[in-house]
């Protein structure tokens, strides 16, 4: 299941809801990405105090659904949940959640990592950081995210 939303989500409640009542599940892996406090990371002494995630409505849902489908074909999964937020968020807030449930722990771990690596490089989201002077700057894509993705291409 995928959800693209502006509202926050409750990580705990989502995981609890997903596992409930399915006794074929042996392991549930989850990953939540949060807005970090970027203090001290910029050279000019400004401080990032919020970020805004822009996305491409329509394509986002399409890509997330494709990524879920790919994971389900690759691993024996009992359930999959992807939630990605857009809009303005402050440090400590949730950005993204993936949860995978499988009979086997290896499948749960690997598929969750796969989903995150694909999200990071294929889902059409863009981060605009806002510093304490009110200036916004677009975050550049990281090569390490492409590297993370490449390990799944075999």
């Amino acid at each position, binding site marked *: 299941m995928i959800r693209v939303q502006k509202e926050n989500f409750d990580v705990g409640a989502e995981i609890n809801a997903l596992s409930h009542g399915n006794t074929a599940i042996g392991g549930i892996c989850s990953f939540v990405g949060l807005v970090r406090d970027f203090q001290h990371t910029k050279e000019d002494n400004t401080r990032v105090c919020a970020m805004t995630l822009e996305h*491409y409505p329509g*394509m986002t849902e*399409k890509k997330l659904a494709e990524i879920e489908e790919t994971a389900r074909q690759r691993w024996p999964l009992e359930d999959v949940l992807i939630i990605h937020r857009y809009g303005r968020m402050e440090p400590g807030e949730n950005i993204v959640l993936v949860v995978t449930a499988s009979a086997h722990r290896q499948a749960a771990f690997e598929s969750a990592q796969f989903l*995150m690596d694909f999200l*990071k490089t*294929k889902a059409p*989201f863009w981060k605009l950081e806002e510093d304490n002077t009110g200036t916004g700057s677009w975050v550049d894509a990281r090569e390490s995210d492409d590297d993370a993705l490449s390990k799944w291409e075999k």
Partner: protein
Amino acid sequence: MKVLYFAWLRTKIGCAEEEIDLPDTVKTVGDVLDYLRTKGEVYAEALGEDKVIRVALNQDYAQMDDTIQNGDEFAIFPPVTGG
């Protein structure tokens, strides 16, 4: 054809979406970019060879030599940074 811009391409070009009339000679994704570059300095710079951009055709990642058709949704954006 409807052309969408996201992230710094949107802010640089100054709009999120516009309708572009393409000449008949424009047949591929690469042709569209070449044509847009002729629309003015802002376009030429935003879509310059030194810029890393991605194109989606009808909400799928597209290659430069993919063929375009009437009614396609054409989107231009930087590499994604979500998650």
